[in-house]
């Protein structure tokens, strides 16, 4: 699968502070990739390097294989970027701004006429096109930010905390919008500190803390790799005492709870132990109706990862 975003040992310092530290990031094309980290993790700095607002001190950043360091309009023509709390010139009207940006993207007059009303409707600003941006609320500016990022039908949409400044309804709308954008085949790179937002919207996630990658993969794999599956939920045709006892004897099983014909087996392993469990049940005379591997929520994984990173750091400084 081709890469939409690739960074290799990307480093950015502000004086003594290393905001991004040898970050290696791979975002596959046509995925919705979450970029998760606590405040100050280096998410916005990484994004600013990707869109050309900052120059890296070390390492390389590429978008669709093209290096982004420096003033690269060609690369930017493939990106739609929603900055964190976007600010637009207050003296322009919403329509004027998108019309001018559309010209910058090389949209013809006809394309702009077709595209702009759709975008205003999509982001819920229909009827406010001819108001000065100075009269827009923060939430409206955020919506305008999303609209301008979709103007050029980009291959890659980079959103930096798109839910900031939005009310709960707006947040839901933005999530739906991102899902819609992803369905149309765009690659979405979503930076957020909202775990549920990433979990609901993204297929992949990279977790960073203090400029360092802690984990990067599909959300399921990240959860699995970090703590292993938490539990197996199994339904059998007939539950017997022998079956439960045999399961309890397995070395990776910590606890077995029963309810009617259902088993909830708590596990202590990172390996896929479903074949062994299945064999034990069959040998005990049981028949499996269904089996589900239940992982940890992203929130638990995130807290665990960041906690571990901070513990390590604390150890180093002592």
């Amino acid at each position, binding site marked *: 699968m081709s890469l939409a975003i690739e960074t290799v040992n990307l480093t950015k310092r502000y004086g003594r502070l290393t905001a991004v530290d040898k970050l290696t990031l791979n975002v596959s094309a046509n995925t919705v990739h979450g970029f998760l980290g606590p405040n100050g993790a280096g998410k916005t700095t990484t994004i600013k390097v990707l869109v050309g607002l*900052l120059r890296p001190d070390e390492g390389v950043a590429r978008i669709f294989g093209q290096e982004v360091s420096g003033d690269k309009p060609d690369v930017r023509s493939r990106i739609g970027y929603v900055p964190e709390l*976007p600010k637009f*010139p207050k003296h322009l009207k919403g329509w004027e701004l998108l019309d001018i940006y559309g*010209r910058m993207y*090389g949209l013809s007059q006809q394309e702009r006429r077709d595209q702009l009303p759709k975008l205003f409707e999509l982001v819920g600003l229909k009827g406010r096109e001819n108001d000065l941006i100075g009269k827009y609320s923060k939430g409206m500016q955020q919506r305008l930010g999303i609209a301008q990022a979709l103007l050029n039908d980009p*291959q890659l949409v980079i959103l930096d905390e798109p839910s900031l400044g939005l009310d709960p309804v707006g947040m839901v709308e933005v999530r739906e919008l991102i899902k819609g954008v992803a369905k149309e085949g765009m690659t979405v790179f979503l930076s957020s500190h909202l775990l549920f937002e990433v979990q609901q919207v993204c297929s992949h996630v990279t977790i960073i803390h203090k400029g360092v990658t802690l984990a990067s993969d599909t959300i399921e794999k990240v959860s699995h790799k970090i703590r292993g599956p938490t539990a197996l939920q199994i339904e059998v045709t007939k539950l017997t005492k022998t079956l439960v006892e045999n399961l309890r004897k397995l070395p990776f099983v910590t606890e077995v709870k029963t309810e009617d014909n259902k088993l909830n087996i708590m596990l202590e392993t990172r390996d896929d132990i479903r074949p062994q469990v299945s064999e034990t049940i069959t040998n005990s005379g049981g028949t499996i109706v269904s089996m589900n591997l239940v992982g940890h929520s992203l929130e638990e994984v995130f807290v665990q990862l960041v906690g571990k990173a901070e513990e390590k750091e604390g150890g180093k400084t002592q």
Partner: protein
Amino acid sequence: MTGRKIRPRWSVSFLAVVRYELLWNIRKKKVLGVLILAFAIATITLVLPVVLNNLNNLPTELNPNYVINTGTSISGVFMFIFALVTVMNSISGEFESGSIVPLITKPVSRTTVYLGKISSAILTLLGAYVLLIVYIALGGSIIYGPQNNLHLLSVSLLGSILSTLLWMAIVLAMGSVSKSSMLAALAGVGIYFGLNIAAGILSLFSNQAWILTYAPGSGASGYIKGLTPINPQTGTPIGGVSTGTDTIAATLITYILHPASEVTFFRLEFLLGSQRFNPVDLYTEPLFLVVARSIAVALVYIFAFNFIAWYAFKRAQVAE
């Protein structure tokens, strides 16, 4: 999903930036305020002599040289103020407000953004000066009768724009380097008044007035024998010619009307006995040299400060 990958033609991007900036310039309250002030001053200059004559029961005489002599000389301080209000936040203001982020992440090079901004400032300037000069020409023709040499108004316009562009370049450079509109304005005001005060002292009271030939602003003072009126009581020239970049328009028109003239530069010497200043001639130069050098000096400064502003903008990082 197609994904637009082709960048627009340079001219399309450039005109988009010009449009972006022009809409801002014409909606800036500061620009409108200065323009209204300029029209008010022009109106007073045109009408006040007539009002005073009427109050003293004197007739207002026809003056076919009124427009070319007085109306086209846009004062240095006005040029500076206009430059200041037009460009003091063109670049720095965008950094301060954060609106620079969506602008420079579009597929337009920073050089194009810079050129678009400066072109828009020139267009704003051109529009304002054309309106002002046409207003003065019409008013002068109505009040003081048919005017001579009105074709030279275009030369005056060109000279005034060149003079103003120099101040614009300085203010833009300050704003682009500091990324602060306040600092750009303060530095611009400091440079303007510092140079003018220094120029006044150097020009009139020292033998080193030639230095001012190479500085922006009002420059060294001179007069043209047989052309510049002399105050009969003090013996000092009234008006005259200046080497400064602020007076390119007036000097250029004088040169076109009197190409063979020579400019004598002078300083003032205080005479203890008579308790007055006496003009002492320093050196004489052909008017052509004075004009050509003023234009060359202005162009060098315009280029140099624009280069600084462009380079700082091109290299600027947006961390906040």
